[in-house]
């Protein structure tokens, strides 16, 4: 069909060399990769402007940018429909809200006595900056019911590239119903540590704090070892709830999960808890151990 022209104009077609004009920009060392096989053809554009000049060397003027127009030209063309279309455009280009939920822990902790269980879950709804976050966690023993259960409702705001500030309320269901105001943070620290911390002020005036940290150590792309630590602190001594002041207790965990899908990962691991100071004394006085190690089996999942 069309066979002639290029072959005539550019005999190099199909050959290895590419036609290149003489490189005026050689000092830039930017063109050294061009095969030097073919002699550079004369620039057919010679005489127009600066034939041997590089565009990069053109002088750049210093004109001020024009003012930003306040109107949209489309409004001059289309009598209706643009307002709605602009709203949709903004929503669909950064304005979406999403619902995500995480079941971070959902596990059984078999023991010499009764088996225990524990959960930790989050639900998050909102845009990139402002979100509603619901959190719940708790644990108990089969046959003895819940030992600890709490829910939090938080407003979460992204404040830096990696960290969110969170504030809201916490309601404990067990060991006793108590309400707290809370403020905290959640984010990703250097070296890929997920960190989370919060202060809690109860309606009784008690101040406590919690700090959690965990990390995903990828043994393979699906087999992931997750070390974690959690510290609890309290400002007041509260013998009735068995809690001393200062560092009350700490948890260490090591969980090995297999991500069948990113969103679905069964795991096994070890969970270690230790009470400190007066808290430990209260526990011993009540005939409990101040420390405990348990194997855990569970499921991590999210959507």
């Amino acid at each position, binding site marked *: 069909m069309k066979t002639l022209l290029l072959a005539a104009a550019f005999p190099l077609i199909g050959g290895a060399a590419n036609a290149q004009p003489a490189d005026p920009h050689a000092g830039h*060392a930017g063109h050294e990769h061009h095969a030097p096989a073919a002699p550079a053809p004369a620039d057919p554009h010679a005489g127009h402007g600066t034939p041997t000049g590089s565009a990069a060397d053109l002088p750049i003027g210093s004109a001020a940018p024009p003012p930003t127009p306040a109107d949209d030209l489309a409004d001059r063309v289309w009598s209706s429909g643009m307002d709605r279309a602009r709203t949709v455009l903004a929503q669909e280009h950064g304005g979406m809200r999403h619902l995500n939920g995480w079941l971070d822990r959902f596990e059984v902790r078999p023991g010499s006595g009764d088996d225990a269980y524990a959960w930790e879950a989050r639900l998050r709804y909102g845009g990139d900056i402002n979100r509603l976050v619901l959190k719940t966690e708790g644990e108990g023993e089969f046959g003895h019911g819940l030992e600890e259960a709490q829910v939090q409702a938080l407003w979460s705001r992204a404040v830096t590239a990696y960290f969110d500030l969170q504030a809201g309320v916490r309601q404990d269901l067990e060991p006793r119903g108590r309400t707290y105001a809370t403020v905290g943070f959640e984010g990703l620290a250097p070296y890929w540590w997920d960190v989370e911390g919060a202060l809690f002020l109860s309606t009784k005036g008690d101040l406590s704090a919690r700090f959690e940290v965990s990390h995903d150590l990828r043994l393979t792309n*699906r087999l992931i070892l997750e070390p974690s630590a959690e510290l609890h602190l309290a400002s007041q001594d509260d013998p009735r709830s068995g809690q001393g002041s200062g560092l009350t207790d700490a948890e260490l965990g090591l969980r090995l999960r297999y991500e069948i899908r990113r969103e679905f990962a069964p795991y096994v691991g070890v969970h270690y808890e230790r009470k400190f100071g007066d808290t430990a004394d209260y526990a011993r006085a009540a005939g409990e151990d101040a420390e405990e190690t348990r194997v855990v089996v569970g499921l991590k999942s999210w959507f």
Partner: protein
Amino acid sequence: MIRTPDRRFLLKAGGAFAGGATLSALLPGWARSATPGLTRPAALTGEDIKLTIGHAPIAIEGRRGHAIAINGTVPGPLIRLREGQKVRLAVENRLSEDTSIHWHGLIVPFHMDGVPGVSFPGIRAGETFVYEFPIVQYGTYWYHSHSGLQELMGHYAPMVIDPAGADPVAYDREHVVVLSDYSFTHPHTLFQRMKGQGGVFNLQKQTVGGLLAGRDQTLAERLEWAKMRMDPTDISDVTGAVYTYLVNGHGPADNWTGLFAPGERVRIRFVNAAAQTIFNVRIPGLKLTVVQADGQHVRPVTVDEFQIGNAETYDIIVQPAEDRAYTLVAEAVDRSGLARATLAPRPGMSAEVPPLRERPLATMKDMGMDMAAHGGSAGGDHAGHGDHAGHAAPAAAALPGTAPPRQRGSDVMGHSMEMLDYSKAPQVKTGPGVQMIAPMPQDRTGDPGQGLESVGHRVLTYRDLIALEPNPDTRAPERALEIRLTGNMERFMWGFDGFKWSEGPKPYAFRAGERVRVTLVNDTMMTHPIHLHGHFFDLVHGPVGHLPRKHTVNVLPGGKVTFDMTAEPGDWAFHCHMMFHMHAGMFQVFKVRPAEGAAG
């Protein structure tokens, strides 16, 4: 200046919902496997063209999926026009939501550009909209939805415009190859997952197993990167874990085949219509002579492989001499999968499909932190990685693609560098949407693209592209404008100068006809194919008068791209053509108005 149309081209359609959806067995002729190539009647031609947007079932490798399709197929019909003609395109929307068509790369009056909310109100459910404009250019283009996530679901198709005069490219046969990606999971779900977890679809992360086996980064490198919370394996957001990569709607096992007769010069018109995938394209055994980029003729340049960003097009000539099959490979840039096709003298043939190559690892250079390369050259960088390892040899020797492999362990800085110094980009809005400001961004238009530095054969770079025809505007720029491409990979937030479009940033303002030098600086660790509607911009390298003209340009991570543009009157969308980046906010508008004091 702006003419209001005599009438509003909105016609009420019958309101009938999409009835007879068709299967991919009925793909348009050019997209069918074992096609002999383009034959004129197989395309939609003429001055009156009708298109219908509707839901359609598709089949990929035997698996049924759901698509939003043009005229019932994915890809949709090829539209073939001639430079100088006029065209009316009536688009009927049989969806229950708005739709639109943007004519990608076509120079049209702004109100025919097809971006709802910028150029027109969109096409409501049940309505028919008639686009009407003159064809003022030649080349390979495509068209697609600019509404919601419809393009990701199949709403795209190629367009070929023959030059008014003689075609300077000689060929005996031509094929259109539309590359794309398809997920059987709804794109809204993919997006929601990415908001939930950074790198969720990346199944090629570095592992302890890899470290013990002596693969990937060394411990020192890993620690340095981990400290910065940067993942060098984060090459693609959406991967082969959930994508099937397509050639003309065919999965790799479907083996789309284009026929040739040995000795023929075969022109292949490549369109990357993928939502979120950059491809590396090669045909083992054949040299690829690039003759057109983004629809614009370039001086022929012969390579072994080229990278094609989303929405880019390349026309190449191959001349298979042997009576055998050749495999066309379009490898996803992160090497998590590939699109595959066959060029063969007869149907039913196939050739060896090369295995996926090792996935690339991002380097300090991709963070704009390559001290060694900085201050040197832009184009010399492809071999620059060696500099860290003490290969002080100047990079000048290596052709793009043939640099010696980076030495393991060489990608450490050994000192800290400020990663978020806003004083380097005062126009950027601070906040959670900005993870990084590239400390030392480089012109990377001489680089072959991520993962192609050391593939052992010649790879195309932007610096190889020289416009065949003289540029229409060779004036020096009157002013300069820098736009930063910003993002946060952990939060999956993307924007320009720190703004998502939903945050209401000030549009970029231009005077009609003014010549402006625009520099795009990539402050993220991912390549962004940036598209400006309604314009061809001239990449600033090489001789004045023959700069390559493009509508979409890949800006490599930690890199920058500079172009000169002549502002055309109108309001024009400007965005990343990674559709999920755009959806996340990486979208802006260029507002071009008559100069102050000018009539109008």
